[in-house]
C-alpha cells in the first residue's frame, strides 16, 4: 500500500524578503516561529558589486570579463501595463533583500502630523495608529539598522535619540543652509541609514558615495545582509529562492491555506501550505498577488469585499532642480562623495502659521552638493555654451559648484488611481499582468507650484543659478519609487483592507506588511516606517500564534 505523506504545513509563509518580508521573517524566527520565506529571485553577490570602483578602474575588471551585479527586474521578463497616455515608471527588484539592496536609505520618522492628517483635513482616512504606537518600533529599528542624523527634532521629525553622528555638510549645502536660515525655512541634518559607526559587526560607511550600486561592505541596511543571515542562524527559516508567488490559496472557509508560486528557473508550478501568510512583496506586487487570488469566497480578490484593494495608489511627486553656486566656482575640487546623497534636509514647513497654501498635505526636500555622477548635477555641464578650451576651463571652474534640490511631496489617495489585473494579458507563467492607472490632480499641481516657489526663493537667497530648470516639470510618475495605499490599514472594514496590526479584516490569517498598507503617502521616505510596521505586526502575529488564535 502506498503511503501518501501529507504536505508540510508551515506555521507562517512570508512572501518577499525586502524591508517588510525580511523583517517579518527575522522577527518571527527569532521568537521561535518556523517560517518559509519565498523570494522571487536569488541572492545578489556582494563580491560582484562595484561599490568602490571609480569609473576608470572598471576597465581592468571588464577586460577580465567581470560584470557588475544588476539588480533591477527587466520588463522583458516581467511586463506590466499602463494606460496609454499615463506612463508609470515602476522599479522592481526580485532577489534577496529586494529594493533594500539599492534603496535611497533616507530614514524619516512619520509623526502625528502624518498619521492624523485626514482627521484634520477630511481627505480619505487617517492611519489607525498614532506616533506613540509605533515610536518604540522606530527606536528598535534605528538601533538595528544604524541611522545617522542630527538632534534637531521637530513636530515633523521626532525621535532622534538613537541616531548615529551625521556626516558634515559639503560647501554648497552650507551655503544653501545659510540661505534657508535667512528665509526662516527649516533645515536639518539628513537622516539616512548609512552607518557612520560600526554596527552589529558591520563596518562603518566609507563615504564612497556609490550606494546605488549596492554596498560591498554592507555598511547600509540591506535585508539580505542585516536580517536574513540572522534569521537563517535560528534554524527556523527555510528560504526558497526564485519562487515567484502568484496566488494565495484559500479553503472553503475563506481562510488562506497556502501559496501558489512558480519556479523562476524552470517555470514549474509549486505550492506551499501554511497556517498564516505574511505578504511583503512590495506595494505593487503584493496588490497583484491579492487581486489574482480570486475564489468563490473572494470573487474580487483576496479580502477585497470592500473593493479598496488596488485603489488609492499614492506615489509621491518629485521635482528635480539643478544648478550651481557662483561663490564656489573655481574653488579647489573636493572629495564630496559622502554618503551618496543629501547631507541636509528641509522638513515640511507649510503647516506652520502663515506658511500654508491652498492645498492639502505637504512636501520636504533633499539638498545635494556632491561630485555625484553624470546623471546628477554635473549633467548640466553640457549646458555651458561653446566648445574648445574655454568650455573645458568653464567646466572645471563649475565642477565644485553644482548642487541639486529634490523636493518630495505627498500625493493624495484617490479611488481612481488604481492597480488592477488584466485577465487577458498574462506573464510567462500564465498569471494576469498588473495594470497601473495613475495620474495626479489639482492638489498636487498646487503643491508643485509651492515647491517651485520654495526652490527659487532658496536658490535666489543663496546666490545660485538654476540650470536646465523647467518650473513645475515633475519627474515621471513612479520615479520616487514610494508606492503606497493599495491595501490600506484603517479602523473601518468598509473603507480599509487591514487592521491596525496589518491583519486583513476579511481574512484573519493573512497579514500585509509592505508599503501598500499605508493609508497616505506622506512626503517622507517610507522604508523606516515599513520596517517598524512589519516588526510591530509580526510581534502581534507571534502573540496570536502563541495564544492559539492563528
Amino acid at each position, binding site marked *: 500500500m502506498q503511503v501518501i505523506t501529507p504536505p508540510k504545513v508551515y506555521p507562517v509563509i512570508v512572501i518577499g524578503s525586502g524591508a517588510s518580508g525580511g523583517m517579518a521573517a527575522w522577527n518571527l524566527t527569532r521568537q521561535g516561529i518556523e517560517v518559509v520565506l519565498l523570494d522571487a529571485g536569488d541572492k545578489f553577490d556582494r563580491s560582484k558589486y562595484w*561599490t*568602490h*570602483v571609480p*569609473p*576608470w578602474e*572598471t*576597465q*581592468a575588471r*571588464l577586460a577580465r570579463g567581470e560584470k557588475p551585479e544588476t539588480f*533591477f527586474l*527587466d*520588463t*522583458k521578463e516581467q*511586463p*506590466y*501595463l*499602463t*494606460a*496609454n497616455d499615463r*506612463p*508609470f*515608471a*515602476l522599479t522592481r527588484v526580485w532577489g534577496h533583500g529586494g529594493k533594500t539592496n539599492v534603496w535611497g536609505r533616507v530614514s524619516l520618522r512619520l509623526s502625528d502630523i502624518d498619521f492624523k492628517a485626514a482627521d484634520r483635513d477630511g481627505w480619505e482616512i487617517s492611519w489607525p495608529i498614532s506616533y506613540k504606537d509605533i515610536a518604540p518600533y522606530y527606536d528598535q529599528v534605528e538601533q538595528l539598522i544604524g541611522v545617522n542624523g542630527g538632534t534637531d527634532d521637530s513636530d515633523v521629525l521626532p525621535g532622534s535619540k538613537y541616531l548615529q553622528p551625521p*556626516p*558634515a*555638510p*559639503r*560647501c554648497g*549645502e*552650507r*551655503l544653501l543652509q*545659510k540661505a534657508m536660515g535667512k528665509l526662516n525655512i527649516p533645515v536639518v541634518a539628513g537622516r539616512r541609514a548609512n552607518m557612520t559607526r560600526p554596527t552589529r559587526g558591520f563596518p562603518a560607511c*566609507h*563615504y*564612497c558615495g*556609490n550606494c546605488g550600486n549596492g554596498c560591498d561592505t554592507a555598511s547600509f541596511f540591506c535585508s539580505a545582509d542585516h536580517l536574513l543571515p540572522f534569521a537563517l542562524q535560528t534554524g527556523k527559516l527555510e528560504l526558497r529562492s526564485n519562487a515567484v508567488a502568484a496566488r494565495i490559496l484559500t479553503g472553503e472557509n475563506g481562510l488562506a491555506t497556502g501559496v501558489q508560486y512558480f519556479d523562476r528557473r524552470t517555470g514549474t508550478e509549486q505550492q506551499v501550505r501554511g497556517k498564516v501568510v505574511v505578504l511583503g512583496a512590495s506595494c505593487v506586487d503584493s496588490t497583484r498577488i491579492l487581486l489574482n487570488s480570486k475564489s468563490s469566497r473572494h470573487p474580487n480578490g483576496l479580502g477585497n469585499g470592500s473593493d479598496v484593494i488596488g485603489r488609492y495608489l499614492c506615489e509621491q511627486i518629485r521635482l528635480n532642480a*539643478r544648478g550651481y553656486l557662483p561663490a564656489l566656482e573655481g574653488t579647489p*575640487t573636493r*572629495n564630496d*562623495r559622502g554618503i551618496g546623497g543629501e547631507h541636509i534636509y528641509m522638513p515640511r514647513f507649510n503647516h506652520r502659521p502663515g506658511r500654508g497654501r491652498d492645498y492639502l498635505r505637504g512636501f520636504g526636500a533633499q539638498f545635494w552638493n556632491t561630485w555625484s*555622477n*553624470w*546623471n546628477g548635477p554635473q*549633467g548640466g555641464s*553640457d*549646458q555651458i555654451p561653446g*566648445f*574648445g578650451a574655454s568650455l*573645458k576651463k568653464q*567646466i*572645471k571652474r563649475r*565642477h565644485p559648484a553644482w548642487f541639486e534640490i529634490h523636493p518630495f511631496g505627498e500625493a493624495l489617495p484617490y479611488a481612481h488611481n488604481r492597480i488592477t489585473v*488584466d485577465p487577458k*494579458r498574462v506573464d510567462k507563467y500564465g498569471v494576469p499582468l498588473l*495594470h497601473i492607472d495613475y495620474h495626479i490632480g489639482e492638489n498636487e499641481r498646487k503643491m508643485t507650484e509651492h515647491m517651485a516657489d520654495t526652490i527659487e526663493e532658496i536658490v535666489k537667497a543663496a546666490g545660485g543659478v538654476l540650470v*536646465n530648470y523647467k518650473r513645475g*516639470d515633475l*519627474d*515621471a510618475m513612479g*520615479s520616487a519609487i514610494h508606492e503606497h495605499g493599495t491595501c490600506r490599514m484603517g479602523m473601518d472594514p468598509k473603507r480599509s483592507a487591514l487592521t491596525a496590526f496589518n491583519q486583513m479584516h476579511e481574512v484573519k490569517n493573512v497579514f500585509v506588511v509592505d508599503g501598500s498598507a499605508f493609508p497616505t503617502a506622506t512626503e517622507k521616505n517610507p522604508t523606516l516606517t515599513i520596517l517598524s510596521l512589519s516588526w510591530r505586526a509580526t510581534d502581534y502575529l507571534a502573540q496570536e500564534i502563541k495564544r492559539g488564535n492563528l
Partner: protein
Amino acid sequence: MGTSETDLSRRRALTQLVAGSVGVISMPVWVDSLCAQARAEAHTHVVQDAASSAAWTPSVLTPHQNDAIVALTELIIPATDTPGAKAALVNRFVDHVLSTADANERTEFIRGLTWLDDRCRARVGKDVAGASTAELTTVLTPLAAEGTPAAADAPGVAFFRAIKSMTITGYYTTEIGLRQELGDDGRMMLGTFEGCTHPEHQ
C-alpha cells in the same frame, strides 16, 4: 483609452533623465534621449577601451565617421595643459553609446554627422576629418550658438548638441578627465568625512 506594455528594459533609468535634460532650445527627442543614454553608459564605456590597443575597431561608425568623431570630440574638449578627448579615447565611448542606442537614435545621429560632413565640404571644401581646427571652428560656431537656430541649420544644431553632451560625459568619466583635469582625488575609501571646513561658508 488603450493600454500599453511598458518597456523599461533599457530605459529604466532614462525616462526621468530625459524629462530633466531638456535644454533651453527645444531639441528633437532623439538628442535628449541619446545624451541620457550616454550618461547611463558613462561607467561602462571602457568595455571598448579594455582592449585599449590599436586593434580597436568601431562597431557602429565607419572608419571615416570615426575619424570625424575623433576630430569633433577633440574640438569640443581639446588638449590644453591636460590631455583632451582624443587622448581619452572619447570616440570609442561615442561608438559604444551608439551601439546601445535605439536604432532610430543611431540613424538620426549618423544622419546629423553626414549633414555636417556636407556642410563642411560646402563651406571649407573638406570633410570634418580633413578640416583644420580653425576650419572646423568656423563651420561649428554658428551651430553652437545660443538662441533659435536658422531653419537650414537645425539638423546640425541638434547633432552638435548630441555630440557635445556625449563628449563631455565620456571625457569627464575617464581618469584623464576626472583626475587629471578636474583634480578629483579618486579616493573611494575614507575613514572620516570632513565636509566643508571653510570658515566663510559656515
